[in-house]
């Protein structure tokens, strides 16, 4: 299968630290790719570089063959690459429901003239989006909190909201940064189910996660990162069998 997204020799330094050190890897179309590795390996930095939030010092990012290196964030999102944040960043004055309504792309009501003169049109869109938002809220168990300001959610709830927000952006590739951290075990299963369903619909995933069960359940392939480089790539079983991975990442065999 042709790679959906290719990362070639990507480097990003912060002071003396090379968060990404000519990293090369790819994310396949229609698959779930796991990105795992020790703390500080550069996983989040990679996601930042892929979504326009960190400008790489060198190297290339190719999306379906197009060079998208260093494109600003909103254009990357426009190309269908969306992400969730590891340290949750909620839109604090929006309600949970509104947070989800903001997400869908191409809203007519988001332009000045559209908002003023196209009320009928954007209202129709809004209804449609509301339906999708509601369904998703129900799945992640936040429906009852729909009209709460999102800043008042618990840590895990914010995580779920963050993922739901990303899902509503009708992405092609969705990059999740530790979706399972802080989420209760039953809802983690729900995440697994959700990812599988969406994958069946043709979405591609890149998932950063430390919960090995979750990774094992959903990932077709994994890349193990360490010190800004790809250490091992392969299936979950292959990767976790590698002694280097065991010592650097898993510790005593899990």
């Amino acid at each position, binding site marked *: 299968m042709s790679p959906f997204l290719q990362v070639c020799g990507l480097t990003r330094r*912060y*002071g*003396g*630290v090379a968060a990404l050190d000519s990293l090369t890897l790819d994310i396949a179309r229609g698959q779930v790719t796991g990105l*795992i*590795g*020790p*703390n*500080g*390996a550069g996983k*989040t930095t990679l996601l930042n570089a892929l979504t326009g939030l960190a400008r790489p010092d060198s190297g290339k990012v190719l999306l379906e063959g197009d060079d998208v290196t260093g494109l600003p964030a909103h254009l990357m999102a426009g190309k269908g690459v969306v992400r969730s944040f*590891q*340290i*949750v960043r909620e839109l604090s004055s929006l309600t949970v429901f509104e947070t989800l309504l903001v997400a869908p792309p191409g809203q007519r009501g988001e332009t000045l003239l559209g908002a003023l003169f196209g009320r009928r049109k954007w209202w129709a869109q809004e209804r449609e989006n509301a339906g999708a938002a509601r369904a998703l809220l129900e799945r992640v*168990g936040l429906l009852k*909190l729909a009209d709460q300001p999102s800043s*008042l*959610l*618990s*840590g*895990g*709830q914010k995580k*779920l909201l963050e993922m739901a927000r990303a899902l509503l952006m009708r992405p092609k590739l969705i990059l999740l940064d*530790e979706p399972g*951290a*802080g*989420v*209760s*075990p*039953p*809802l983690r299963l729900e995440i697994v189910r959700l990812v599988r369903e969406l994958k069946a619909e043709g979405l591609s995933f890149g998932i950063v996660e*430390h*919960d*090995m069960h979750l990774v094992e359940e959903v990932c077709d392939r994994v890349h193990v990162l360490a010190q800004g480089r790809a250490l091992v790539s392969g299936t979950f079983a292959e990767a976790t069998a590698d002694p280097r991975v065991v010592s*650097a*990442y*898993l*510790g*005593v065999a*899990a």
Partner: protein
Amino acid sequence: MTPPPDPRDHALAVSGLRAGYGRGGDIVCGIDFAQKPESIVAVIGPNGSGKSSFIKTLAGLVPTRAGSVVVTGRDITALSPARRVAAGLAYVPQEANIFATLTIAENLKLATEFLRGRAGVGPEQRARVLDLFPELGQRPRTLAGNLSGGQRQMLAFACALLANPEVLLLDEPSAGLSPRIVGETMEAVVRVREAGVTVLLVEQNVAAALGIADEVVVLVAGRLSLRASAADIRQADLAGLFFGKAA
């Protein structure tokens, strides 16, 4: 229900605790709980059930509406968060648990500077704590806000340990940590307990928590719905625990 605990036998004794935010309803709805000294208790429960709110109330960050909190025989219910430190309480929050605009070294210094009369750990123990997370020692002048998610967790945990507490409250210490570090953190918790500290731990990583806890309490909708030894819980059906009928 259990008879009201005798505070003197317990490191941490909570009775009839009610708490909530602003003008909203109670989030913590009447919790009676007591913990033996030098034990580890894990609090688990669904998202939004009030686990963080519970330990924030213990730390004094959420106003107590009713009930009392006693730490090592001292009633701290009316104290401000800063004064609770003197009673030997240390707390690691779930989010925003480090000072992002201070350097790593400053974060560590601050951990022991304002203990209000208590002494922090000795130099030997200090070195032990820092050995636990070698990454923290490598770039002391880095701003903590630029650390990776896992590195932040390490820093936060280290800071709490340096305060040499009697009772340690941990909110999801393993979130975001790699499996190896989770293992090491959990070992560290066990060692801390052996050094005489009482640990109350909120975890979503149930497996890791069960691995070290003596007892587990399940919190659902602001109430303790179950309390059992870790061994018993290992057999139980989690989904059942979280969403209704006790096992």
